[in-house]
């Protein structure tokens, strides 16, 4: 009996060998990513990197800069660049490259910035205090890269661009000299605006998010990071008329969450405070016809706009959805770019025309008051937050862990695939 038991155990162990082999990372292989949207920010971090990055907790992590110091008034910042970092064309990264890449972008916002480059040390000098400079430098818009003669971006990221068809297709190949080590994948092809999702990774429209998918596909959902809201004078006055629950449950197929504030609960921590009972509907709204403009060619936005119009009609308000610009109300889709609540609130505030304020995620009371002030201005009516929903082929491994690298971009550098 013992012998038979050991024999059974031995056979079982043999049967587990291939399974264990499958879970072990392997180099090589290629994947195809089909994205319905054409947002470059989702892909470019694979090619271009920033000095620092925000992790999933919203904390600053080093990336191309390994260390930094600043003077007490935070006007002078000194960055030590990571050594042995190479651009995809083989040129080593130094402070001069960083200054050349950063200054034009920074000077669009801060005309007073100056840079001093020496070896691997970059000094940025401002005339004003820059307490949130690190958060800004984590933005994909301040990535270090340059364009080659064909206009193709050349960065320091884990993948280099081998083919670039703007708005349609990007072909990537593993960068062998990547400072953090070569990615597992040999190559990746990203199809933008793909009509059919046949790749290893593809985004799923919400209307199909609960459909029965093929067995080799699983669904992965990012944290909610896209705000859908109505913007315009007295937009908030429509709040009593809008029923967000059917929008979340049906239109978003339970993949999002109702939005009452500008930042999601996971980011601000206080979003639940805005979900109070709606105020009364202003009677003067019943006397006018309101045009609601939604983004053209966006079927999901159109469905939400039409649902809002239906809700409004039930309340006796005439709301006319249209894709033509110029409506009294706009349905906007704003994607969070970082996990820094203060930065995102300021960014949304600037989109609404509010002046930038000195906010810090470390002072949530200030954040709450600032957000409350924005909402009380009645220029925005949040409706729901949405995540990204992807279909992931089962041959793709380490996907969940890879996406925890921070930001809201696709992280392909740590995934590997079965042949």
């Amino acid at each position: 009996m013992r012998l038979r038991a050991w024999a059974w155990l031995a056979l079982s162990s043999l049967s587990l060998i291939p399974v264990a082999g499958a879970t072990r990372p392997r180099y090589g292989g290629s994947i195809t990513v089909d994205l319905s949207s054409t947002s470059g920010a989702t892909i470019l971090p694979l090619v271009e990197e920033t000095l620092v990055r925000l992790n999933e907790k919203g904390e600053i992590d080093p990336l191309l800069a390994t260390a930094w110091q600043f003077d007490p008034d935070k006007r002078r910042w000194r960055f030590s660049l990571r050594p042995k970092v190479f651009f995809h064309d083989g040129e080593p990264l130094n402070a001069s490259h960083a200054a050349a890449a950063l200054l034009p972008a920074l000077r669009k916002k801060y005309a007073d910035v100056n840079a001093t480059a020496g070896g691997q040390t970059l000094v940025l000098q401002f005339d004003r205090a820059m307490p949130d400079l690190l958060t800004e430098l984590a933005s994909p818009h301040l990535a270090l890269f340059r364009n080659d003669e064909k206009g193709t971006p050349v960065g320091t990221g884990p993948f280099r661009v081998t083919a670039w068809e703007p708005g349609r297709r990007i072909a990537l190949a593993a960068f062998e000299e990547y400072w953090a080590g070569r990615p597992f994948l040999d190559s990746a092809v990203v199809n933008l605006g793909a009509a059919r999702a046949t790749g290893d990774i593809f985004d799923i429209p919400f209307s199909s998010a609960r459909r029965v998918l093929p067995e080799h596909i699983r669904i992965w959902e990012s944290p909610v990071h896209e705000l859908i809201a109505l913007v315009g004078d007295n937009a908030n006055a429509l709040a009593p008329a809008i029923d967000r629950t059917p929008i979340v449950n049906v239109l978003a197929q339970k993949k999002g969450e109702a939005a009452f504030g500008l930042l999601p609960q996971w980011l601000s921590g206080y979003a639940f405070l805005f979900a109070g009972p709606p105020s009364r509907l202003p009677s003067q709204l019943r006397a006018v016809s309101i045009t609601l403009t939604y983004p053209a060619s966006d079927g999901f936005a159109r469905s939400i706009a039409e649902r809002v119009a239906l809700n409004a009609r039930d309340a006796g308000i005439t709301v006319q959805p249209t894709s033509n610009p110029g409506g009294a109300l706009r349905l906007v889709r704003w994607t969070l770019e970082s996990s820094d609540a203060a930065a995102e609130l300021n960014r949304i505030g600037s989109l609404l025309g509010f002046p930038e304020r000195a906010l810090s995620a470390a002072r949530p009371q200030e954040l709450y008051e600032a957000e409350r002030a924005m909402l009380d201005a009645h220029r925005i009516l949040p409706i729901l937050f949405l995540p990204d929903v992807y279909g992931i082929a089962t041959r793709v491994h380490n996907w969940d862990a890879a996406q925890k690298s921070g930001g809201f971009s696709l992280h392909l550098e740590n995934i590997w695939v079965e042949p």
Partner: protein
Amino acid sequence: MSFRAKIFLAITVTVVVAVWIVAGVVSTLVARSFERRDEQRTATLVAQFHAEFNRRSAEVARRLDAIASSDEIARMAVDLGSPQADPGKYYDQAQNLAREQSLDFLELVGPDASIISSAEWPARFGYKENWLLSFGDSKDVFLKREELADGAALGLIAVRAVSGQLYIAGGQKLDKQFLDTLPVVEGMRVELRTTIDSTTPSREITRSTPDATITSIPLFGREHQLLAVLLVENSRLELASLKRYIRDTALLVGSGAVLLGLLLSFWTASRVTRPLRELTSSVREVAEGKWDARAAVRSSDEVGQLARDFNRMTAQLVEQRDRMIQAERVAAWRELARRLAHELKNPLFPLQITIENLQRSRDTPQFEEVFRESTTTLLAELDNLKTIVGRFSDFSKMPAPELELTNLNQVVREVIKLFDAQIHAEGRPEAKVELALDENLAAIQADPEQIRRALRNLILNALDAMPAGGVLTVRTQNLDGKVALEISDSGAGLTPEECERLFTPYYTTKQHGTGLGLAIVQSVVSDHKGTITVHSEPGKGATFRIEFKA
């Protein structure tokens, strides 16, 4: 109106009226023909509409049956039947099925009439379609007005119920694309009007406008409610164009007729009225005294015959005139001879008696006395003969007038003054003289001596006509560019025959007149380019009226 104008008017009116009648008749026939054609077209189109309607209905029914019997719907019905059913996950199911079956409308509705999924208005999930609860199991396809996010549309709708868990209501739009399948020929237009109000007709009617004939065909829903009107419009532009063409042609022909009438009238006039005008001219010449006038004979028709008769008539007139002149000349010579004989016989007889007395008394003692008396008588009678001869001589030697500016009133007064003694002679019955002279009388160019002579003759005649006294009236007056002089008496008057012959030389109504007085008056008046007329009736006196140019 001239003969030419009459011919022109007759031809023009005849042709224009004929053209107008023809154009009117043709227009009416064309209009009726077009109306019949439009009716046929409309009937064909409506029949085709109903055929297409039925075909589409069958198609909708077939497609809806396919959906109702599909695996997706079967699974959905089963799933919805479970206690934990979540209808929300079928939110876009209707869109997918509608796309597969090419349906414009498709709603999947739960047993409580809540919309689970809507193809035509996806955002309307959760809303109620209560009309389905009372629909029953009918397989009919019917018209229904579907509310959409951007308005309303008319659809051919069918309903299927699946396992008591699901209603499937779907169909196709009845819109422009549907109408495009109809055989609309050029000049026709088909429109589906879905805006219904109180003025929308609920029965088929046809009305005409200047531009089109429009037939309205009402379309009803399942419960016979008016949902839309099919408008079939037949353009009348082609008819209007044809009518315009007919009118323009008629106008052209009419204008041509007017022109033709003008030409024909000229031609006819030249054929007919020219001989008549020539004949008229000849008649006028005859009237003016040119009796030998002739009309040209250009044809053998009635006008030519008229011209020939005219020529024969004038020839006869000339012949008669010549004979009359000859007769008058003979008569005048006879009268002259009679007058000469009469005038000469009076003195000759005393001469003869005196000479016979002389012869008888030659041997008598009284011879000397007789001789003396006889010679005295002979001389007196010879003087008388000389006087008679002198009168005739004077008449034959009327001189040409020596014109000068003459005041006729003054001449009248001078002449009247000459007769003053004679008028008031003792033993003569008194004749009253009345002068009615226009003091503003215009002066005339005249020979005052000849005028006096003529006036003397007239006054002498007037006094002779009133042996028992009466009233002599002399009147002058201004006329339009003329001056009139009238001498009237209240004597016995003249007969019309006497009036007619009064101015004939040597004609006289008096016992001892020479018949030259009035002839001399007429000669003087004629030499002054004037006219003299006499108006008289027996017993009512006579008035001689002379008119001179002022």
